[in-house]
Structures are given as C-alpha cells and as structure tokens.
C-alpha cells in the first residue's frame, strides 16, 4: 500500500500530478459504479466519472476529511449523475448506444456476446432500486466488504448487507444462467 488518501489529497492540493493520478486510479471505479447505478448507461457513467474527478480536483479544498476522499468523491459522482440525468434526460434503457462507445472490438464475436451480456445485465439491474444497484456494484465489481460500502455510502452495515442480499437474489432470478461463477 502506498501513501494514504489523506496525503495524496494534500499533495494534489499543491498540484502534484502523480498524487492526483494515484487518487484517480484508486477511486475512479467507485465513482463510475455510483454513476452507473443511477444512469444505467456505461458511456454516460464514464463521462460523469470524468466530470466528477475533475470537479473533485477543482474543489479539493472542500474535502474536509481527506482520509475519506472516496466517500466525498462518490457524493460528487452521485450529484453529477443526477444533474446529467436531469439535463440530458438519459434513460436507463440505452445499452446498445452505450456499448458503441466502448473500446474498439478486437474479436467481433466475443464483443457481440459481451454486448448482449451487458444488455441483459443492465436490463436486470434496472429492476433494482438505486441503492441496491450501488451496493451490489461496489460489492461485486469493486470487491468491497459490507462495512467498507457502508462507510462509503453513509449507511449502516446491516442496511448494506440487506441491499446486497436483495440485489443478488433479484439478479439471480432475472439472469438465470447468464452469470458465471467467480
């Protein structure tokens, strides 16, 4: 483990590009998953994540608890996603459009099946509440524990455990045999 978030935040305040890059690498996925849970659109979530990270840099003095930078960034990403959705009237059912903006395909067959899988996943996730999506993303994609998710989202651990459980059960029902084992 390198420097703490608190140190990286202080260095970023002084314009240290390496420190800011490290913060981006550590936490961009959390911000992205938060945005994705609201938008249901991979490309839009990427754009919002980028905006959130830049906003975080520009307002980094406002991060009063640098050791909790991730939670602060998530709040920014959530607000950005909310504004994006309101402004652009993005609907969650745009998976194909989203897929068009992902990196170029190297294997058309594999990518086509990946796009199809993405469509199915987004469709299933769309039936969950926003909190459930956020919690299950952070649990499954980012690999965080319930307690860590609770701290990031400002929830009680028991609530997170419940959201994750409900989300996973719903996804299993919706997806059937689509998902594989880890």
């Amino acid at each position, binding site marked *: 483990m390198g420097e703490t978030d608190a140190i990286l935040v202080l260095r970023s305040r002084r314009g240290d590009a390496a420190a800011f890059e490290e913060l981006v690498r550590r936490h961009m996925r959390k911000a992205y998953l938060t945005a994705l849970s609201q938008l249901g659109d991979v490309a839009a979530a990427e754009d919002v994540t980028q905006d959130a990270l830049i906003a975080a840099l520009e307002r980094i003095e406002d991060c009063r608890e640098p050791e909790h930078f991730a939670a602060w960034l998530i709040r920014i990403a959530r607000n950005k996603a909310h504004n994006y959705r309101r402004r652009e009237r993005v609907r969650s059912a745009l998976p194909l459009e989203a897929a068009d903006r992902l990196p170029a395909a190297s294997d058309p067959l594999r990518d086509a099946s990946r796009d199809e899988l993405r469509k199915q996943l987004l469709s299933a996730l769309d039936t969950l509440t926003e909190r459930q999506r956020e919690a299950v993303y952070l649990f499954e*994609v980012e690999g965080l524990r319930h307690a860590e998710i609770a701290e990031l989202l400002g929830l009680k651990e028991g609530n997170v455990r419940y959201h994750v459980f409900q989300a996973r059960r719903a996804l*299993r029902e919706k997806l059937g045999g689509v998902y594989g084992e880890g």
Partner: protein
Amino acid sequence: MERDELNERIDLSALDPFADPAARDAFVARVLDRGAFELARRRRDTAGERLWNGGSVFGVMAGWARPALAAAALVLLVSGYALRTGRAQQQEAQSGLIEAMALPSPVEQWLSEERTPTTADLILTLEGGTGW
C-alpha cells in the same frame, strides 16, 4: 466469508470498462489531460505562496541577509570613522570611541586588531556566541 453467503459470485465485469488495463490507462490519461491546467495553476499558486511566506530557499537566504547586512553596515560605519581620524590619534580616539559607543566586544576586537571581520566572525557575533 461474506462472499460465501450465496455461494456464487455474480459476474458483472461486463459492466466494468476499467477491467481492461488499456481502457483504464486511456481513461486516466483523459482525466489527467483535462486536469492539467488546474494542476499547473495549483503548482504556480503553491510556488508563489512559498516565496511570499519566506519558506523557500530564497526566502531563508533573504532572512539571513538582513542581519548580515546590518552587521556589515555597522562595521563600515565604525571603520569609516576610524579612517578619518589621524593615525597618531587613532589609538586614543579608537578606544575612546569604542568606550563611548559601548560597542560589543567582538567589534572592539576587530578594530583593535585592525582587521576586517570574516564571515565566521559575523555569524558568531550575530548569534551572540562571543558574549554580545
């Protein structure tokens, strides 16, 4: 243990664009590119702040220069006065002047030895290391 609750992991990696290292690096590069101006502004502001607060090397040097210059000016003043008096009267005048001015002992010593103080003399005198 937590991950064994439902025994099976739900694979959502298809929704994770950062699972691909190339895509992840490209994303980071775009963010850094967009943030470059802000980072540069912050570096400039920090550098300016340091100079202003005297926290930089130059600031520290400036802090040192002030007492050193003051000491040099004092020596110059005393030396100039001494040169203007006659050689014959110099000893008497000097001792009289030194007593009258109540000069610190190191300065008195430089004058009586008729020598220019070295840098070390100045520093020691400023630090009070010779009883000033």
